């Protein structure tokens, strides 16, 4: 009896110790060896970013010229005033615009500048006096009697970051400063809408993140036209010569790029890097056959067929081998001798005067008829010099549209200064930078949050240190960009947002995150089960037996006691 009891005891101990070994050594060992490396990610910060509260601050300086405020009023002029505007775009996106307005009276030098004969000269000399930083504005309030502006113009918007505002007629001397400011306010607001960010621009920039209710067709077309924000763009000019046998085309692309395109791109350098190249493609045909219009003895391309023009040409354009930035294509098509002249017709069957069209987020095509350059007795091939001024005019306009530089429609009474040789005014650049930084921030947060979601969903993806590093740097840059936007430092904000977008894309498109590389869990367990099942069943059974025996013994003991 005693020996069997000892035997039983020993068997129980053996079963328990085997179970212990399996649990203490086996399970951790298996866990360790099959574990995937997952570097730490700043998940809580990413969650914070997903709930985006953007604040955009713009500094506005209102300068009163002599004759607009009386000395008594001058004393009461408040130094600063902030105005907040809040918009909730959707449940986790909110925008707040803050305009910090500073008031002061003009200095003597500024008074001198304002005494220039024309508004353009005044604008230039005010600019030389002081250069306002990126994203800020200076509004000069000039007396009603000032001869700077024409009769029916109240506001003049210069090429830089200054605007001239004519003091209203009804604001005679003698009112209080509060009334004066209240009177100025609506005009100021209009100026800000034109020269700085406007709500429509900013919400359009958020389109990546927020699905907007479909507005009118016009605004969708507007928002779809320009390229998405990217750290760099490749601009390619292609001369399509479908008929090198008859036309020998010469274009001075190098010189005209220097003259027309480069100044604009130099100005846009803070927004993105640009590289320009050009090529000549021979025997490149359009995808559609133009129709012959016998009335005008010319060939016509209808607007319906324009959509089919690009595809066959695109096969010849070639992708950029050296970088993966988006490409802006500008094609100059000189129709062959048998299909000239060629005109593009719009929906109303009228000739498009520039003979050019563009395709959103792709580029522009211009048809350049050369049949007028030679008579019927000409000997083929004819040498033809292309008038680059005409061509570049069209391409530059298209380039502006495709890059998203678009002038807002000015309210009545506004006079917008004509563009300088660079093709873009400072405040237009500011507008572009505002919407680009917001777009970058929105895109980068979407990328980072969806990456975090992906990694969260697929538990066995390896997260290497370099990815964690990219993610953290993207998060830091994003936080910095948001902070800079809040502080009103537009230049830095754009810089940080660009860094954020680069880092987030690099993390997102890292080849090691390809989830097809990893087994799903059910397949893994299908392999483990033949090993685990025969091992675990006896252990579990004997443990169950021990437990039930112990319970029975306790019951017996209790019965004995009773």
């Amino acid at each position: 009896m005693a020996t069997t009891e000892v035997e039983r005891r020993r068997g129980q101990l053996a079963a328990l110790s085997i179970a212990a070994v399996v649990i203490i050594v086996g399970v951790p060992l298996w866990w360790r060896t099959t574990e995937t490396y997952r570097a730490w990610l700043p998940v809580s910060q990413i969650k914070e970013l997903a709930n985006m509260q953007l604040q955009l601050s713009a500094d506005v300086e209102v300068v009163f010229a002599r004759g607009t405020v009386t000395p008594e009023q001058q004393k009461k002029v408040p130094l600063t005033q902030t105005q907040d505007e809040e918009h909730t775009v959707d449940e986790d996106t909110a925008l707040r615009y803050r305009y910090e307005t500073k008031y002061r009276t003009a200095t003597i030098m500024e008074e001198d500048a304002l005494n220039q004969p024309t508004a353009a000269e005044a604008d230039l000399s005010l600019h030389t006096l002081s250069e306002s930083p990126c994203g800020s504005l200076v509004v000069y309030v000039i007396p009603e009697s000032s001869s700077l502006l024409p009769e029916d113009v109240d506001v003049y918007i210069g090429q830089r970051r200054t605007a001239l505002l004519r003091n209203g007629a009804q604001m005679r001397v003698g009112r209080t400063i509060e009334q004066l400011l209240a009177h100025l306010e609506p005009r100021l607001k209009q100026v800000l809408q034109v020269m700085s960010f406007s709500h429509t621009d900013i919400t359009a920039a958020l389109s990546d993140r927020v699905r907007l209710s479909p507005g009118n067709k016009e605004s969708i077309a507007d928002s779809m036209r320009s390229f998405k924000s990217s750290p760099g763009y490749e601009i390619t000019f292609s001369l399509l010569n479908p008929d090198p046998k008859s036309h020998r085309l010469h274009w001075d692309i190098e010189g005209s790029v220097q003259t027309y395109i480069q100044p604009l791109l130099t100005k846009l350098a803070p927004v993105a890097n640009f590289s320009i190249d050009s090529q000549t493609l021979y025997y490149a045909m359009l995808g559609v056959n133009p129709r012959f219009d016998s009335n005008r003895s010319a060939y016509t391309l209808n607007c319906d067929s324009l959509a089919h023009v690009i595809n066959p040409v695109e096969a010849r354009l070639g992708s950029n081998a050296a970088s993966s930035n988006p490409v802006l294509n500008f094609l100059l098509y000189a129709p062959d001798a048998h299909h000239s002249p060629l005109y593009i017709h719009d929906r109303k069957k009228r000739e498009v005067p520039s003979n050019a069209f563009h395709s959103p987020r792709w580029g522009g095509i211009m048809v350049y008829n050369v049949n007028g350059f030679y008579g019927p007795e000409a000997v083929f091939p004819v040498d033809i010099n292309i008038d680059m001024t005409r061509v570049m005019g069209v391409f530059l306009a298209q380039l502006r549209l495709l890059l998203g530089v678009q002038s807002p429609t000015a309210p009545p009474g506004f006079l917008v200064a004509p563009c300088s040789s660079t093709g873009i005014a400072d405040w237009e650049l500011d507008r572009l930078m505002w919407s680009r930084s917001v777009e970058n921030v929105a895109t980068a947060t979407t990328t980072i949050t969806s990456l975090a979601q992906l990694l969260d969903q697929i538990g066995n993806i390896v997260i290497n240190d370099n990815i964690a590093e990219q993610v953290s740097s993207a998060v830091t840059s994003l936080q910095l960009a948001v902070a800079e936007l809040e502080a009103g430092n537009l230049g830095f904000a754009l810089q940080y947002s660009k860094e954020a977008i680069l880092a987030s894309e690099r993390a997102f498109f890292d080849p090691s995150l390809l989830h097809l590389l990893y087994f799903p869990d059910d397949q893994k367990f299908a392999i483990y089960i033949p090993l685990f099942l025969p091992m675990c069943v006896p252990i579990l059974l004997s443990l169950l037996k021990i437990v039930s025996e112990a319970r029975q013994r306790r019951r017996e003991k209790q019965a004995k006691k009773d």
Partner: protein
Amino acid sequence: MAAHRCSYSALLLIVCSLSVFSVADSQETTLAGDHHDTAVDDNPRTDTVTAEQTAEQPAVDQRRWEATEVEEATLDDADTDTRDSIPPETAVPSSVPHPKDDFQEELVIRPLHSGDIYASFQFRTLWETDFMRGNKVSHYRLFPKSLGQVISKFSVRELHISFTQGYWRTMQWGQPFQPSPPGAELWVWFQDSVTDVDGTWKELTNVLSGIFCASLNFIDSTNTVQPSASFKPLGIGNVTDHRFLRYAILPREIVCTENLTPWKKLLPCGSKAGLAVLLKSEKLFHSSFHSQAVHIRPVCQDWQCKTTSWELRQTLNVVFDLHTPGQGKREWSLFKMFSRTLTEACPLASSSKIYIDITDDPQGEQFEVSPATPLLSQAMVLGDRRTFSVYDLTQQLTFGTARSLNLLIRWKSSEGEMLRPLLHAERYVAGYGLQTGEIHTLMYNNHPYRSFPVLLLDSVPWYLRLYIHTLTVTSKGKDNKPSYIHYQPSKDRVRPHLLEMLVQLPPNSVTEVTVQFERALLKWTEYTPDPNHGFYVGSSVISSLVPSIVAMDTNSTQERPLFSSFFPCKEESSYFVRVYTEPLLVNLPTPDFSMPYNVICLTCTVVAVGYGSLYNLLTRSFQIEEPSPGLAKRIANVIRKMRGVPPL
């Protein structure tokens, strides 16, 4: 990620559909564009002040941007004005800039002694520009933009890439104008400003594989070597530090239409005009041998070499097998070979010629060429003086009254002896079993009385472990000691073996190089999808200066047919030849690939059985149990119980 891609394609769709809308936009562009027109045209009419303004660009710009709200009524007449007024100004171009680039095309047709036809196309684009210095080159005319970008981005000094389907049979066909090994071959000299050559090489191969639709992305460190002597730069420049050279060969690469299309796209005329209209893939790939190549190198502009220019040479060599039985007559024509005839030269080409090699038949006894041409030309090619009939496609006369050229050769007799090529080589694997083997390389010197040195380059993948101590070089039964050996041992999964040696080939002899190897066991993921097919080992390369029969032309800048000017010639008495051997197909020990699952099942069973019995031994307590009584006894006991008798 999928979702991301999905959104991209959706975006594409939207963009496509939006291009329809774009006319609405185009009106805007139009406006912007044409008040510029009005600006220019208005000038003469309105006043002198604006006329002055047009002279300087900024003023023009100002007007262009400002007049966004020009009413449309004025546009039409302004536009007609434009058309009327411009022609007198620009009809006679003031100055046509001198083009800095030049394009030539030529086709050489050589009837081979085997009855096949060898057609060799060459297209050369010369561009007087400087990729080497820092200035960015970005405006392309004849030179393809994609290759130009590659050269400037990766600081390439020289690039040679070839795709070949089939093996060139030197003994039957003689030497080709441009030799190439089966599969894909790529060798690149980088500029000495490149710091991370390996990284640049990796990126370059990936970009090239995109450009040529080939699997060049399989080039990695395990099949890349840096030959020390075999591949010298073919262009100018005396950098011979082989740190900047990378050479790789992919013998398995299959060449087909998808490689030809991007190659044709690099030509200025595409396949629309000139000789390239003959390049139809359905005929080109129905041939015994097909090889297409791209060579980029800097060359001298003139003999003084004051200015350099970039040369892009696109070559395509094809051998048609026309001597098929059942066809009866031996004759061929352009139409029969390419299913096209020629109607014009590429209008961009400064020279466009067809050469037919009639050296073997000066009197027209063996074959007859029609239409006949009075133009004959002689060229020194591959150590021989050869005579060609020349057809100049830039002359209208060539096409005759039919306005199309269909060259026709009709054979009269099939006699004729081919001159044996002076140098050729072959290679094979010997041995049995899956453990060891031996590579034999045979090099033939057919010159009757002169010996010459050859450079042999062998690049063997790491999974054939060469026993370099077994390397023997014998010719005419005697040991032939190489005067230079460069051997770089392999590292498993990192780099291949590289063996280069300089061997003197005695006259009229066979030199045999043998080396033994052991086959390595690969990891199961390292096998190719069809491992039982075997593993390819790239061709060996034999480069040599072969003694020439005639004096070669050493002036490289002199006007010569393209086919004779590819390899630069340094001395008159010899010419450069490169010979490729066959690639090898070696079987490696291949496991059964369903094995891992079987192994898992088997081990699990063994573990379960062994572990189960051990566990039972450890945990069960054993006790002696009374054996239960038999059935008869039990029945007897039941009966006894009923009777009241004690049981048994």
